[in-house]
């Protein structure tokens, strides 16, 4: 055995001995320190590598993230629009369902539904514009209602639209009767959109909450359509009639869909009215 082989053998024996001792647990604290140094070194290299990797690959990720974000934002906008449309549809469906219930509970009349598409441009007048006209057999004078009560009557008609005079219009007057008091009266509109009750006989007792229905007198409206309830009564001894304020049954600020009673023809009683004496 030459000296070179002897040297190699000794090195192997020494290293093998050290390994055997280490594996046998004789170098516990030393191996832990060595291991921790190794782990720290590896962690350092690994974190630096990951940092470098992020540095080189991040721009590509930002572009893809931005694209994805834009896609998602577009999708969110689309879904929000859908939600709004669906909410609108739900609202319309609820209104239509109420109107269908109303028409079913009043089968003596035939109805045609119409959407409110505008209001009179002048603040002096309380008129609405609906999207049904003479093409849908709508005629002047036809009453307009909702499931809550009387809205007004058709004032002018063109092919695909009509103008409706609301009962809140200052020029509107409706013959009514008070259900509990069993007496006739007349409602008038006003510039503010409030409805007042007039022509109530002084010897009639009217109470707050009395229901007001159309009487059908004069032939302008069918009878028994709800108008509202009495809120306050004003009785002045020196006046011929009592007056009252009304809480309307219909919410005129939220008119969206209305029903036109198409089988009612108003009666023109003008020829029967007495002429003023000269």
């Amino acid at each position, binding site marked *: 055995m030459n000296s070179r082989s002897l040297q190699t053998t000794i090195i192997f024996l020494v290293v093998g001995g050290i390994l055997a001792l280490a594996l046998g647990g004789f170098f516990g604290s030393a191996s832990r320190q060595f291991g921790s140094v190794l782990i720290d070194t590896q962690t350092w290299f690994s974190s630096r590598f990951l940092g470098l990797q992020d540095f080189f690959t991040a721009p590509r990720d930002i572009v893809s993230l931005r694209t994805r974000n834009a896609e998602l934002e577009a999708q969110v906008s689309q879904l929000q629009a859908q939600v709004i449309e669906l909410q609108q549809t739900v609202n319309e469906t609820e209104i239509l369902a109420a109107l269908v219930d109303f028409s079913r509970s009043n089968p003596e009349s035939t109805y045609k539904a119409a959407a409110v598409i*505008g209001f009179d*441009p002048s603040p*002096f*007048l309380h008129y609405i514009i609906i999207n049904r006209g003479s093409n849908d057999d709508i005629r002047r004078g036809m009453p307009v209602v909702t499931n809550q009560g009387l809205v007004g009557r058709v004032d002018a008609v063109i092919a695909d639209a009509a103008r409706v005079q609301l009962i809140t219009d200052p*020029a509107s007057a409706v013959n009514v009767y008070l259900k509990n008091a069993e007496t006739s009266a007349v409602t008038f509109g006003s510039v503010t959109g409030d409805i007042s009750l007039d022509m109530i006989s002084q010897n009639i007792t009217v109470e707050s909450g009395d229901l007001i229905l159309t009487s059908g007198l004069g032939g302008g409206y069918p009878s028994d359509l709800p108008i509202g309830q009495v809120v306050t009564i004003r009785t002045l001894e020196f006046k011929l009639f009592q007056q009252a304020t009304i809480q309307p049954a219909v919410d005129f600020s939220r008119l969206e869909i209305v029903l036109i009673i198409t089988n009612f023809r108003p009666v023109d009683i003008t020829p029967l009215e007495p002429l003023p004496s000269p």
Partner: protein
Amino acid sequence: MRNSIAFPLLGLAVILQSAIVSQVKLISGYADLPLLMLAAWALQDRVKSAWHWAVLTCVMVGFVSSMPWLVVAAGYLGVIFMAQILQRRVWQAPLLAMFSVILMGTLFIHLLSFAVLRVLGTPFAFADVIGLITLPSLLLNMLFSIPVYALMRDLAHWVYPLEEYE
């Protein structure tokens, strides 16, 4: 030819007035978009078609509104008349002229509406009309007059370009 923008623009104004502006109420009054547009248009020194625009507005508003034609026609034509008189006298302060025309125009149209409707039998109380309709409408008209004036000034520059005007 560019003046034909009046048809879609005034049509849109009447639609907006009927569908949206009439819903933006202050007490019982609301702004009058066609009035604002006409006044602002008539106050532009390059504009020569204010009367045509007014007639077109009268036809459109008269068609939509239940207000008697007399009121609509006299009201809007009267506003153009006022605007043209003021434009010659207060030409150095166009916004002041705009405010003046809106003030006088609103009062004129409302008083005319009140008078004609009263004659036709609608029971109005003058104090109610002034307090609940006219003054709130006037305030809203004043408020909207600034953006409408700016819009119509830009439109006038487009319809009547400077080289053509000179």
